[in-house]
């Protein structure tokens, strides 16, 4: 599903060069639930962003569904992100000016979906995360756990095959965290490929496979 070959990421600022990822080779297969762990600053987010086409590697190749994407232009990349990928962020990244329903609809705005269909799909996604009673609310009126569930609904509304989650439970207490994990597991059981960055061992243990990073290098 996703394949990384010799991926390297270097951050250059005027004074320092940081090697955030060093020669990463890995493959995530369809239907897998993979977790990524490692100490702070070891490159987990960088890796996830590169797999999700949010960032470009300095070196190496990325294949999604057997397609090499390094030559893709903005328009094509956007299309790929829209159709194949769904993101969940630690700090939710909901748009405060939009209602829950409008937030969830965002991925559908960038494909040919009628307004009516968008409403329906967004409603369905919100039902899946147990938030169908909060559709008219605004992000500010929600708890952290609820916000993250809205974010998950947004990530799945376009039925992407791959869901990328960067510490989706990092800002939540353990009860909420477990709820979120349960939702992800359900999505995985329904066929989604999931890659999740986490700091929580017990959560990582509940996934199929663990990738461990240390200082930009894969150690497991």
């Amino acid at each position, binding site marked *: 599903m996703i394949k990384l070959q010799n991926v390297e990421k270097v951050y250059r600022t005027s004074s320092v060069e940081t090697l955030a990822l060093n020669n990463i080779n890995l493959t995530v297969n369809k239907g897998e639930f993979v977790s990524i762990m490692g100490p702070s600053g070891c490159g987990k987010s960088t890796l996830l962003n590169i797999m999700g086409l949010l960032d470009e590697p300095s070196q190496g190749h990325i294949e999604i569904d057997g397609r090499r994407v390094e030559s893709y232009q903005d328009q094509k990349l956007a299309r790929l992100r829209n159709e194949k990928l769904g993101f969940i962020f630690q700090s939710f990244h*909901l748009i405060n*000016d939009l209602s829950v329903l409008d937030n969830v609809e965002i991925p559908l705005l960038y494909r040919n979906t009628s307004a009516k269909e968008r409403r329906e799909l967004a409603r369905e996604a919100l039902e899946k995360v147990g938030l169908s009673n909060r559709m008219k609310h605004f992000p500010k009126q929600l708890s952290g756990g609820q916000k993250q569930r809205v974010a998950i609904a947004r990530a799945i509304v376009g039925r992407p095959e791959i869901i990328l989650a960067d510490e989706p439970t990092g800002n939540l207490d353990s009860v909420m965290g477990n709820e979120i994990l349960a939702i992800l597991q359900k999505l995985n059981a329904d066929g989604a490929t999931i890659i999740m960055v986490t700091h929580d061992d017990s959560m990582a243990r509940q996934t199929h496979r663990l990738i461990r990073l240390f200082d930009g290098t894969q150690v497991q």
Partner: protein
Amino acid sequence: MILNYIKIAWKVLLRHPFYTFITLFGISITLTVLMVVTSFMDHLLGVHYPEGNRDRSLFVTSVVQKDTTRSSRSSSPMSVRFIQTYLKTMQTPERVGMTSMFTFANAYVNGKRIKLFTKYTDADFWRVCTFEFLDGKPFAEQQIKTGDQVVVITDDFQKQYFEDDGKTVIGREVEIEGLRYRVIGVVKGSPATRPYSYADVYFPYTVPKSNYERGNMRGNFIAILMAKDKSELTTMQSEFQQAMSRIPQSGTEYGSKYTNFTIKAEGYADQYMTSFFGDDDSRRVFFFTAVAIILLMFMGLPALNLVNVNVGRMMERASEIGVRKAFGAPAKTLLYQFIVENIFITFIGGSLALVFSFVIIQLINNSGWIAYADLAINPTVFLVSLAVCFLFGLLSGVLPAFRMSKLKIVDALKS
């Protein structure tokens, strides 16, 4: 999709009341000023009651006599004799109307003084102008020939002078400066900003006290040459030039010699400018350059301000941009979104300006500041200003939007 953008734009507006206020204030004040100013210009220079034939008329308003030997110069309107000899005899004009520039007079009602603007006109004046007669009719050639003491008055003067008993005032008398005149017509008054038609009372030019026999060339009368049609204006102009060229350049006027004279027939707007700037074209050019620069600044400053505020506002929305891109928005689409937002804001500003202008113009019309003021919103001006605003909206939006749409997703999400 567009509806969605507008929804966001609306919410962004509501979320930043201060920004919204500054932006809308900038746009709508600029537009309002533009519209009120042009409406005023149109009021001054356009074709309006009771000078409804301005667009097919040339105005001859003054003659300048110079004595080059003593470098002296006299300028004034013309004498009746001059107008009758040289202008009334022209072939191209359908009519040549003649009126004095205003003079003043007093009338008394129950011991109260009414100060009046008076005009002495000929019969053609009423044909060249498009006065609306509320009662009675204008004076005819015969009454001018016999020097009848008759008068046409405005509705305003009628109200002040006569009790409103519902009866017609035609045939009744008014006493002005100790002379009695019979009212033969009542017209709807002309605004004071139209000096060739504005007055409170209009006499035949042959009544006593008009001094119409004064002067060879210079006097107190102006002429309006009305062509049959706009297309004949140039023919009329050349006939006028020819007629003038046949008059000897030098002569004597009021006891002093002159060595040459100049006289012009001009369209209304042109003669208006001449009355302001004199014959000096460079002064005119300077004035219009200055106006253009001021206008540009008027439009430019809000635009610059818009760009500034926009950049700040969009930076605030970096996270939104990151999210949209992460979920598949191409840079182009985002650019489009921000442009739609900006145009939407401009549009609101434009609508506000329309309301403001309308209110201000109504206020001016009803304030009595200019009697009989008839300012109106000029749709062309509104559309052009709106287009200019759109352009600024675009420019002020495109630049920051372009920068933002090119933002890297990871960077956008971090901020």
